[in-house]
């Protein structure tokens, strides 16, 4: 298909324009010439300061988080062979957020929050997969139900933690939870993790294509399914945890993006993974721009915007899935 080859360059272009749009919109609208000048020939001025110190980190954070979630979602969907899987829906973001909040509550910072978030994500994955897989084969509906119920459980724990947290932390925690990009500081480590995760899973993309046809078919075609699924499990948890540390729990990016790319006719994971990273980055930059400008000067948590996109799609997929079992 021609569109497969054109898609990646097209998505790079979209990423670039989303990047410019994200940088130029805000309380003080800027022209793209301002932006390009500040990025490439920074002169000490208030515009340069605004772009480099305030907008740029946030825009990059949105890009990275979007890419992390989209790739994590794509991987989880192969892992459970179900297009409804997403870090948020399955409660992975929730588990990760609980552990991160606990670390914050304990007054820990930096690396502690990251590693707690990772452990939380890993534990949440183990829980949802363990409970579903215990009785043999995957049942997609049971997996989803388990995930949704566990997500509700994580939500209750989050509420509990918020209740016992001191008032001065509360607003920040709450915003972070709903998906907030304004606190992001660790863009470098997020970029490193995204890059590493990608380097690990892209060479496995052909195995992922085969795994899509089920565990037995993949084994018979020469895939070491146990090792592959374990690896997917770890990478998906790590990517999700990084996204959660970066911006709280933002839902549905991991659901919407792979679906969108498949709609465009790309089903080969060798294209789908990079396409998901690019499109996820673009989508979250645009969603973040909307969340900053829609009710300006009021800022909305970006999780609200992504939920508005994701929930109708999720329901649509669920409907369609029911019709053709």
């Amino acid at each position, binding site marked *: 298909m021609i569109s497969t080859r054109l898609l990646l360059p097209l998505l790079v272009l979209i990423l670039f324009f989303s990047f410019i749009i994200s940088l130029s919109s805000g309380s003080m609208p800027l022209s793209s010439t301002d932006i390009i000048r500040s990025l490439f020939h920074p002169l000490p001025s208030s515009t340069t300061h605004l772009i480099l110190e305030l907008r740029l980190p946030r825009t990059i954070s949105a890009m990275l988080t979007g890419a992390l979630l989209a790739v994590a979602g794509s991987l989880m*969907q192969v892992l459970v*062979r*179900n*297009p409804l899987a997403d870090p948020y829906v399955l409660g992975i973001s929730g588990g990760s957020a609980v552990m991160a909040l606990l670390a914050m509550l304990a007054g820990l910072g930096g690396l502690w929050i990251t590693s707690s978030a990772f452990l939380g994500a890993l534990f949440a994955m183990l829980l949802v997969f363990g409970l579903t897989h215990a009785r043999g084969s995957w049942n*997609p509906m049971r997996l989803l139900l388990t995930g949704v119920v566990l997500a509700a459980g994580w939500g209750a724990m989050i509420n509990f933690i918020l209740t016992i947290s001191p008032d001065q932390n509360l607003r920040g925690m709450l915003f972070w939870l709903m998906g907030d990009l304004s606190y992001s500081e660790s863009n470098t480590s997020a970029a490193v993790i995204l890059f590493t995760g990608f380097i690990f899973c892209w*060479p496995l993309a*052909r*195995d992922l*294509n*085969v795994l*899509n*046809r*089920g565990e*037995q*078919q993949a*084994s*018979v*075609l*020469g*895939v*070491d*399914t146990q090792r592959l699924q374990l690896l997917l499990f770890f990478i998906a948890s790590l990517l999700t945890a990084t996204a959660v540390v970066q911006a709280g729990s933002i839902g549905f990016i991991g659901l919407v993006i792979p679906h969108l790319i*498949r709609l465009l006719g790309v*089903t*080969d994971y*060798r294209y789908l993974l990079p396409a998901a990273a690019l499109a996820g980055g673009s989508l979250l930059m645009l969603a973040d721009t909307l969340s900053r400008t829609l009710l300006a000067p009021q800022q909305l948590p970006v999780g609200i915007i992504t939920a508005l996109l994701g929930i109708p799609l999720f329901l649509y997929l669920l409907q369609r899935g029911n019709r*053709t079992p």
Partner: protein
Amino acid sequence: MSQLLQTRGLTIKKGNRILCQKLNLTVNQGERWGILGKNGAGKTSLLYTFAGLELPLHGERLIMQDHIESLSRREIAQRLGLMLQDTPDPFPATVLQTALMGRHPYLSRWQWESQNDINLTRAVLEQVGLKEFDARQVSSLSGGERRRLALATLLVQSPPLMLLDEPTNHLDLHYQHAMLNLLQQHTKKEHAIITVLHDINHAAKYCTHALLLFDDGTSLTGSCQAVLTTDHLSKVFNTQIKKHCIDGKDYFYAT
């Protein structure tokens, strides 16, 4: 003639039932084996155990003289393939993409499918009667077309030993015979097949050997002539089976 599969004292247990007891089987190049047995007798488990998807309780499995445990999944896939009864397709994929997966065990990590691989796959799709189906979505295929696609994937893989789990399910009469004929042609070279069948007459017509799986886990193996007798078959299916000769050929039927 070299051995493709050998089992020694293979015992398979599922739950509390012994499905297969101390099976000693040798499958050579050029042979076509039919497995016959009642529903739930353990025919599929037997195939899965041959393919290394399930573990036996006891016994050894040798694939082309090597213990299956000493081979990686990739090495196994270069020696044997299995056509499953059903494969899920939760994500969209085209017929060509799916059949092309048969090349997976032969491509190295960084290799992409070549034009040769694609041409080979197209030729196989034509053989199974899916010529103009390249770009069709798998989800739009009928049950019979899916079976033929699964067969195409196996033929693209073309391993020396081909295992098939009820390949003729969902197929109309024309394609049942077309498929078995195709398999017969394939085994004239260096291949062998082991297939689960429901129709005794298919086994009698297309197979060289038969494996009967009885309810109590015992089994009977040998050439079709020796094994496919009305006594044995009546015992396997727990129902009276008779034989009738038409135009010099024996046909089996249940009474």
